[in-house]
């Protein structure tokens, strides 16, 4: 994992100096069903999206709090359509280039669902931009929207892959 010392000076300076909000402990809900019956979705902050989607903003300072929906069906028809528009200069993409599972383990999830270790794979998965200096819009608008999508799909368990 990269440390502050690995960051380029301007990004490091910002991270060290900015008074980010203290969001407290996340309200994690207990799993209400057995894992082998649970429907599972992925939520990544790797800035992934399909090549037909609008890319995330390339300006870090604008704090693009939007998210993209990645349908399971779209991914498996053509995994090559998944692209990355994460803005962070510190984001080493070489791992993703070799294996998408490091940030978006949909193939692995399908494998464990097929093996009966989890109940099913959700039809929709979500991708955010992980480099956000401002999170207000995320907290107030887009994160609740994302939660609604997962709820509509009867998702029991979300696996977060922070980048």
């Amino acid at each position, binding site marked *: 994992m990269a440390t502050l010392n690995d960051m380029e000076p301007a990004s490091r*300076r*910002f991270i*060290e100096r*900015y008074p980010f909000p203290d969001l407290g402990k996340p309200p994690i809900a207990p799993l209400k069903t057995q894992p082998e019956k649970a429907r599972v979705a992925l939520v990544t902050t790797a800035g992934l999206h399909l090549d037909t989607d609008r890319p995330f903003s390339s*300006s870090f*300072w*604008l704090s693009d709090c939007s998210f993209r929906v990645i349908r399971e069906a779209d991914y498996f028809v053509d995994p090559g359509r998944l692209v990355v528009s994460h803005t962070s200069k510190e984001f080493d993409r070489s791992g993703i280039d070799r294996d998408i599972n490091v940030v978006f383990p949909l193939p692995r999830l399908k494998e464990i669902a097929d093996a009966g270790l989890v109940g099913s794979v959700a039809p929709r998965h979500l991708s955010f931009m992980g480099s956000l200096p401002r*999170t207000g819009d995320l907290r107030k608008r887009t994160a609740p929207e994302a939660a609604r999508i997962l709820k509509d799909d009867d998702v029991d368990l979300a696996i977060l892959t922070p980048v």
Partner: protein
Amino acid sequence: MISNYDPCHVPVNNALNSVNSLHSGPEGRILKMSLAESRKSETFELLEDHDFLDYLSKHCDRLSEAESESARLEDLGGNINRVRRVIYKTAGGGEESLIIKHVPRDGHLARYPAIKFCDRRLDREHNWYHWCHQISRPGQNVKVPDILHYDRERRVMVMEDLGRGKAFDTLLQSAADKKTILSNLGSFLGSTHRASLASTVPLQMDNEAARQNRRYVFTMHVEEPETVTRIWQDSYKDQDRISLSARLSMKDEYLDKYAGQIRPVLENLENSFKTGSSGQAGGKIVYTHGDLHTRSIILSQEGAIGIIDAELSDYGNACFDLGIFVAHLWAHSISLGIPQEEVLKDTAGFLGQYSRAFEPGQPVPDSGFLADFVQHAGAEMLRRLLGPAGFNTDLSREAFIEVLITATDLLLDGDYLVARLLEAIEDL
């Protein structure tokens, strides 16, 4: 410094309601000027150094012929006003100085005649100084200039020179000086605002110059007309600093994303200036300085604070003064690389003193007031970034971005900063 005032006296209330052609000294001393001398006032302009010296000897009687001959002038003028520091040798061989300020007819910008501002702005500066002198307390660490002469007709004021002062950036690099100055300034503003709540002086309810200016503070930059865009210039001279083209490009990109969210907040602030915050327990209506950025504050080598340039003083939301000052405090601090946690503590020190002076017995302002305050600070930051005025300190591209992100947080998501400020003020 000048200490030789005009001898005539009239009550200060008359000064605040003054009509044509008044010369005045501090603490309500006013000398009526001959009306015959005002006939050409409509076309009267002071343009060159010799005009200022000529005026001082003919109309103001401040300088003797010998003093006038020895005088040298420094141009301190801004976009609108023509201001000179006049330094001269006295008969005793010493050196003294004064400030002479003149507002051009129709208040037009010298380089951009299409843009005009109210030219009665000097009346308000005169009134605010008088007001401050009237309520000043012994031992007060903040002062405003004594008025040596005021010519309303010709839009000329001659004032005590509070000195060159030291740069605000220098102050921020000394923790002890910073704490003292912020504390004294908070205390001064709190007591001044408080005094205006109980004032029987007929404070005038509307300053046209300030009303015009509030559009620039709050909303103008969101839909800036072409006449204003043309006056943008490279305000940050250092080559390492953000360029004009980068600022303009970031402005467009920023407004594409945020205009819809920030416009209603800014409009609410602009509309509520005369009524206070529209929500909860926001800022009360007080007599504001109206333009309390860091060039309106003179810090002497001895630690005294002077406040000048009160042309935009008006009766309005207390958070306006506080927000403007703190926006500049943050921008200077960010430019110097001071961590924002430290800036939050500095802000808490300033606001804590303000609160104690404004409402003795209530050392911690309530959250509604702080919420109003942080939005005002955000609005001033934003207009300095997205409008032509700029800050009084150089900003690198990174610092510009940091201030921009901070401004947006203050305007749209200030709740967490309010909580932190409350905590920091309670810990003082």
